[in-house]
C-alpha cells in the first residue's frame, strides 16, 4: 500500500517521538533520585543559603557585571571610533589594545590588576577596592571584544546615512551620535547581549582578590557553601541564579529586537 508523503512524514515523526520518550523514561528510571537529591538538592542547605545568596551574592554579581559592562561599552565605543579614525596613531593604539586584551584570558587580567599594579606602582592599589578591580578587569576584556563588534556595526550602517546627515549640516560628530551610532547599536544588539552574558559569568573571576564576606558574588558564595556543607547543593542553587539573570535578559533583548524590526 502506497503512503502519501504527508502520511509518511507523520509516521516517521511519530517514531522519533516514541524513541525519545523511551530514552527519557529509561534515564529517569535508572537515576537514583534519593541519592541525587541528597547530593544536589538538600533542602536544609538551601534554607541556610537564603537570604544571603540573594541579598549579597546575586546582588554583587549583578553590580559587578553592570559596572564592568558599562565601562566596557564606553571603552569599546571609544576604541571602535579610534579604529575608524583617519588619524594613524589612534588606529594603531586601539588595534594594539584590542589585540592584547582580546587575547589574554580574563583570569590573567584579574591577577595582573590585583597583584601586578601594587608591584608596578609600590603602595598603590586599583582605586575602588573590589568593585574597582572587577569594573576595570571586565571593562578591559569586554571593551576589547565589544570594540570590534561596535566597529563592525558602525560600518554596517549604509554610507548614505552619514551623507544625508552631513547634507543637512550636521557635523561629523553630531551625525555619528544622532544617526549612525543608534543604528549601529540596533544591528549589534545580539552580539552585545552575548558579551553581557559572558561578562556575567566572568565576574566570578574576582575571587582571585580574596573576597570579604560582604563582597562575595554567586560563584564564590556557592563554593563556600559547598565547602562548609560538604554538599553540592550550593553550586546548583547559584547555577540556577545565573540563569535567573541571563534568561530574562535574553527575553528582554529579543523583545527589543522585535520592536526594532518593526521600525525597519
Amino acid at each position, binding site marked *: 500500500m502506497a503512503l502519501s508523503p504527508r502520511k509518511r512524514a507523520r509516521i516517521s515523526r511519530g517514531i522519533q517521538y516514541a524513541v525519545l520518550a523511551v530514552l527519557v523514561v529509561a534515564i529517569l528510571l535508572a537515576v537514583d533520585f534519593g541519592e541525587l537529591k541528597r547530593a544536589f538538592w538538600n533542602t536544609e542547605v538551601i534554607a541556610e543559603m537564603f537570604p544571603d545568596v540573594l541579598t549579597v551574592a546575586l546582588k554583587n554579581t549583578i553590580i559587578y557585571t553592570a559596572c564592568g559592562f558599562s565601562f566596557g561599552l564606553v571603552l569599546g565605543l571609544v576604541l571602535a571610533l579610534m579604529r575608524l579614525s583617519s588619524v594613524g596613531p589612534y588606529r594603531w593604539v586601539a588595534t594594539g589594545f584590542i589585540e592584547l586584551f582580546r587575547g589574554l584570558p580574563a583570569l590573567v587580567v584579574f591577577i595582573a590588576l590585583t597583584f601586578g599594579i601594587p608591584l608596578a606602582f609600590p603602595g598603590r592599589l586599583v582605586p575602588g577596592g573590589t568593585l574597582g578591580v572587577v569594573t576595570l578587569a571586565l571593562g578591559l576584556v569586554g571593551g576589547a571584544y565589544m570594540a570590534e563588534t561596535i566597529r563592525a556595526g558602525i560600518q554596517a550602517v549604509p554610507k548614505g546615512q552619514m551623507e544625508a546627515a552631513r*547634507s543637512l549640516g*550636521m557635523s561629523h560628530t553630531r551625525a555619528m551620535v544622532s544617526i549612525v551610532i543608534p*543604528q549601529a547599536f540596533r544591528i549589534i544588539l545580539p552580539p552585545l547581549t552575548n558579551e553581557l552574558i559572558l561578562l556575567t559569568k566572568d565576574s566570578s573571576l574576582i575571587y582571585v582578590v580574596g573576597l570579604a564576606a560582604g563582597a562575595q558574588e554567586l560563584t564564590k558564595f556557592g563554593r563556600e557553601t559547598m565547602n562548609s556543607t560538604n554538599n553540592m547543593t550550593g553550586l546548583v542553587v547559584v547555577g540556577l541564579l545565573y540563569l535567573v539573570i541571563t534568561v530574562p535578559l535574553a527575553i528582554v533583548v529579543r523583545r527589543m529586537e522585535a520592536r526594532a524590526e518593526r521600525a525597519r
Partner: protein
Amino acid sequence: MMTEPAIDRSAAAIDVQDLHKYFGDNEVLKGIDFHVDQGQVVCVVGPSGSGKSTLLRCVNRLEEPTSGRIVVEGVEITDPDVDVDKVRSRIGMVFQQFNLFPHLTVLRNLTIAQQRVRRRSKDEAVEVARTNLAKVGLADREDAYPAHLSGGQQQRVAIARALSMSPDMMLFDEPTSALDPELVGDVLDVMRDLASEGMTMMVVTHEMGFAREVGHKLVFMDGGVIVEEGDPRKVLADPQHERTQAFLSKVL
C-alpha cells in the same frame, strides 16, 4: 575667530569655475564651468559615469573638488577655511536612495537637524515639519517609520526633510530613478510645485519630460565635461552636438 563670509543673495546661486575632480588617477570632472541663477531650475543629463553625481556632490562638498572654485551665493565654499556645515545647511539635498533615517519617525526625520543644526525650539521645528509634510501630501504619516512608507512616499519625506531646513536651494540626484514607474509622478509633482514657488534647483535626472516642462536650463554632460547647455526645449528638440544627439536618441 572665523570671519563669517557674507551671503549675497543677489549673486548667482551656484557658480562653478574650472572644476576638476580626480578619484585617484581617474579624472572624473575635467574642467566644469557653469552657473545656476537664483530661482532657476537647471537639469543635468548625461550617460552613466559622465560625472553628474560627482558634480552635484561637489556643490555641497560631499565630494572634495581637486581644483577649481565653487561659489554659492557669493561665498566661496571651496575655501578651506569655510564652515562647510553652515554651507550645507543652506543647500538641501535629495538622494536617489532617499536615505531617510530608518530609526526615527517621519516627524523626527524632519525635526532633528532643525533642532540640532538650526537650533530651533522643538515647537518651532515641529511646526515647520508639519507645514512641509502637508506640502508633499503626507501630513497624516508623521508617526510612521520610513520602512512603512512606499518609495514614492519616502522620497517625498526626504524632500520635506530637506525643505525643513529652509534651504536657499535644492540639489536632486536622480530623485525618481529608484521608484516604481507609477510612483514617479507624485514626486515630480512635488518638485514642479517647488519650482513654481521659485526654489533654485539643480536636478540630475533622466526625466526629459520634467526637464522640458520645468527646467530653465538643460546641461548635457559626457565624459566629465559639459558638452552642451541651453534652453531645454531647444536642446531636446534640436541638439547641436553629435554626442548629445546620440544620447537623446537613446533616451527619448
